[in-house]
Structures are given as structure tokens and as C-alpha cells.
């Protein structure tokens, strides 16, 4: 294992400590692993997200004006515990209630659910939304179902903008729900990642092999196949997304996301292909984001996310925000 770390047990606290040194508008609650805005807005709905670490810049990188008020970090690929989440809720609470943005994993659902119950006992109104954008997994109410992946960043943006605009807790929740209903993502992986505490890769892929639909913790995807060109990759990923949800004739926001080890050069090449396919299908791209927004340690690969826009979502997407990982002017 080659990593720039001091000890596997201290990666989360040291990454967050390093982050606030680079971004002095943020503060860090050590031990509870919460990053929040130094400057609070009283009367504004607080927006909190979180989850396992290893997906940087998610989630702490999205804390700032116009997006999240607090982000709660768990251990690498493991949900934060309720006591940490409660600290995040307290930091984000400006007296108008708090919205929790949760990705659909068993551990996150349970820990955030417990924290919500405990916060309500302290009379903080809390609502939650669950992001499940990964079309590689069948949606199901019976099982754990669809995973939450890079599309979560759009939900942070939409909910954060609605809260910044003075929306009530119910309005912020409704905007987040609308975003979730209109977001679909699909990913692929080319090489594995290594959890610092485990020390060896969580899975193996052959030299010329890729896995379509792999999750951001290395969960199995839908198919292992030979390496593809950028044009073929764009086609495969978009086919799954467009089969799942009708984007025809609509305006979309596009996120071409890197999983950590894939160079921006390749992401831009992929974006070039995605634009051609979407344009040919009459889908108009309102705004494109290309970069490492929701990573999986040093996994190489990518995901593509589309969000279908209406006037409200477009306005919220375009509203200014200022965070370490996403700035809209």
C-alpha cells in the first residue's frame, strides 16, 4: 500500500484538519468529525450531508454558502454514528429546522434515522431525503435497492440553494425530492481502491478489463468487459441512464465525475463524447460539471449523472454558491 498517510486510524481526522487549514471559512469539530460553516445564518434551514470518508471532496468539500451547512464524516466507507450526525445537526441548526441528505446505504439510513429521532427529542425539526441515483442497481422497496452516488452533489446544490433563498424546511425538502426524482447516474471502474485499514485492494480487475456499474465502494456492477474507447464508454453509460428515465427533449445538468485516479484529460474526452450523443438525441445541456466530485479513494473510472431541469431546478442550480469543491458565481 502506497499512501501519503501517518496511520490508518487517523486518516479521517487528519484529512479534515488539513481541509480547514486550507479553507478557513470552515470549522472542524474534532472527535465528532463534523465540518461546518464558521458563519451561521440564523433563520435559515440548515442542510446537512454525510457518509463514509474516502469520497473526497464529498461531503465536507460542499460546505459553504449556498450548499451544505455541515458535513458529517464516518470512517472510510463506513457510516458516521448518530452522535456525530447530531453534532452536524446542531451546527447546522439556525432555528428553522434541518434537512438531512442521505445516500441510500443500509448503514447511512439507520444512523441518520437514529440521529433524526434523537434530534427531534431535543425539539429540532429534522427532515430527510434519500438519494438513490445509481441505475446499475434495480430500484426496489423490498431490498436495500439503488445506491446513492455522484448525483448526490446535485441534491446538495439544489437543497442548499433553496435554503439560501429562504425556503422553509418543507420547501427545501420538496426541492431536494424533486431533484432526486430527476437524477440518474451510471458508473464504471477500471482499477480497484485500497482501504487504508485493510491495506490491500478490495477487488481485482484484469489488465484490460473494466467493470460497468461498479459502486463507489467497489460493490459489484452489472458486467465485466474488455476496455472500451471513450465513445463506447459514453454510449454504454448513457444507454443505461436513458433506458431508465425519459430525458428526451429536456434540458439537463450533466456531471462527468472521476472516481479518484482518472485524469481530467480522460474525463474531458468522455465529456466530448457524451455531448455528441445527448445533442444527437435532442437533449440540451444547460450546464456541465467535469471533475472529481464523488470519488472512491484511488479507484480509476468515472460516472455520468444527468439531472432533468425545470425552471425551478434550473434557477436553483444557477444560484451562486461558494464551497471548497464547487463554486457558482
Amino acid at each position, binding site marked *: 500500500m502506497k499512501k501519503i498517510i501517518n496511520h490508518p486510524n487517523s486518516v479521517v481526522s487528519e484529512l479534515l484538519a488539513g481541509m480547514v487549514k486550507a479553507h478557513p471559512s470552515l470549522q472542524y469539530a474534532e472527535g465528532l468529525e463534523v465540518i461546518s460553516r464558521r458563519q451561521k445564518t440564523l433563520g435559515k434551514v440548515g442542510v446537512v450531508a454525510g457518509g463514509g470518508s474516502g469520497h473526497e471532496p464529498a461531503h465536507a468539500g460542499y460546505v459553504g454558502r449556498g450548499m451544505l451547512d455541515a458535513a458529517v464524516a*464516518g*470512517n472510510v*466507507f*463506513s*457510516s*458516521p*454514528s*448518530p*452522535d*456525530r450526525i447530531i453534532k452536524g445537526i446542531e451546527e447546522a441548526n439556525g432555528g428553522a429546522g434541518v434537512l438531512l441528505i442521505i445516500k441510500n446505504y*443500509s*448503514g447511512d*439510513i*439507520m*444512523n441518520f*434515522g*437514529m440521529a433524526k429521532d434523537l434530534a427531534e427529542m431535543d425539539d429540532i425539526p429534522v427532515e430527510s431525503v434519500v438519494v438513490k441515483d445509481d441505475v446499475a*442497481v434495480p430500484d426496489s422497496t*423490498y*431490498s*436495500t435497492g439503488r445506491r446513492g452516488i455522484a448525483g448526490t452533489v446535485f441534491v446538495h446544490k439544489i437543497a442548499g440553494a433553496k435554503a439560501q433563498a429562504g425556503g422553509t424546511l418543507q420547501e427545501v425538502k420538496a426541492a431536494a425530492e424533486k431533484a432526486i426524482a430527476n437524477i440518474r447516474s451510471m458508473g464504471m471502474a477500471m482499477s480497484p481502491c485500497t*482501504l487504508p*485499514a*485493510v491495506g490491500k485492494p*478490495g477487488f481485482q480487475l484484469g489488465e484490460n478489463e473494466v467493470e460497468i456499474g461498479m*459502486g463507489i*465502494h*467497489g*460493490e*459489484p456492477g452489472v458486467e465485466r468487459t474488455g476496455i472500451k474507447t471513450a465513445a463506447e464508454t459514453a454510449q454504454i453509460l448513457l444507454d443505461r441512464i436513458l433506458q431508465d428515465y425519459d430525458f428526451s427533449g429536456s434540458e439537463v445538468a450533466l456531471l462527468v465525475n472521476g472516481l479518484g485516479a482518472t485524469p481530467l484529460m480522460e474525463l474531458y474526452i468522455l465529456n466530448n463524447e457524451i455531448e455528441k450523443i445527448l445533442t444527437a438525441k435532442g437533449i440540451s445541456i444547460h450546464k456541465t460539471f467535469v471533475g472529481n466530485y464523488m470519488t472512491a479513494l484511488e479507484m480509476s473510472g468515472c460516472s455520468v449523472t444527468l439531472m432533468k431541469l425545470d425552471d425551478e431546478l434550473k434557477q436553483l442550480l444557477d444560484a451562486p454558491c461558494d464551497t471548497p469543491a464547487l463554486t457558482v458565481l
Partner: protein
Amino acid sequence: MGFQLTPADYVEYLNRAYQKIHENGDYVTELDSATGDGDHWSNINLGFEKLVEAAEELKTLSLFEEFKKIGTIMMSVIGGSSGVLYGSAYLGAAKVLKDKTVIENEDLCAVLGAMLEAIMSRGNAQPGFKTMIDCLHPAVECYRDSIANGLSERETIGKVRQAAIDGAQSTAAMEAIRGRAFYQANKGVGHLDPGAITMSYQIETLMDYLAEKL
């Protein structure tokens, strides 16, 4: 007279459960690596280690406060899914123990029942999902039946112990509905659920300890 567990006795049980879990590290990690991400044992082991470290304080508390404290420690130390499930289980069980000074046969049945209910409700899970519930549920059912049928405490303890072990073993044939094993192509069929195994270690240890107290 039947068994009676004081707060200090429960701490002694925790010590023994920690030993049992601790010495089976390699086996549980091996099970977990087959279907999960391999961190179940190290997390739950750390949780019990912290409980043992808190032993002196736990002994001084009422049963209600003791169980609440155990729940809080497990929740924050274990983390992930197991932490919140064990945390919920102990917080649920604490309610049953309000105003009790000792745990007797029927109390323990109620404690395990409350734990089962809390885990099922927090995990939104049922028996048959290939989880720790598949160990705890048959143990609780067996406990209730044994009391209803007027079995002696010694007989009850032996039957509950066996029901927990059999329940954990039954997970090998199940398809996972919750957790990461769900994403495996065969849903983990053929593999034991590590969470059910560590649950059975705890019930086994508890029943063996009770047998000594009779």
C-alpha cells in the same frame, strides 16, 4: 430459585462475550471478506473492548442506566450498521429494565425480545434477510415458548442457546436482502452471515454464564 443478574453480573457477561468474540477474529473476518468489506469483526471487537474498559463505571449504574450506557458506547465505537443496531438494541432493552434491580428469567426474555424488536425496526428488516436477526429471532421465540410451556430455567437456557446457534447456521442458505452482500451476484448464498455469528457468540456466552448462576 432461578438466576438473578445484577449490573455487576452483566459486566462479567460482557467480559466473557468480549473474550469469545476476540478469540474468533480470524474466522469472523474470513466470513466477512467473502460477502462484505471485512471490517465487521474489528468493529465489534473494538466495541466490546471499550465496554470492558468501562467495566468499573458500568458496575456502579442501575440496570437501566447501564444498558443505556452500553448502547451509547456501542453506537459510537462500533459505527457503521452494527453500531447503530446494537445501540438501538440496548436502548430498547433499557426501557424494559426501568426500576429493576436484577434480571430474572422472564425479564431476560423481555430484554432479548426488546432487542429483537429494536433491531428489526431500526434495520427495517425481517427474519430471513440473512442478518443477525436470524440468530436472535429464533432464540427469542424459543425463550418465549419455553416459558409458556413451563420449562425449567436450566432446560430453557439450553434450548435458547441451541436455537441461537442453529439460527446463525441457517443464514448460509439465505439470500441477503440488506447490507453489502445484497450486491453480490449470488446474494451471498453458501456463506454464513458474520453478524449472525457474532450474535450467536453473545447468546451462547450469556446462556453458559446463566447456567453457572443456577
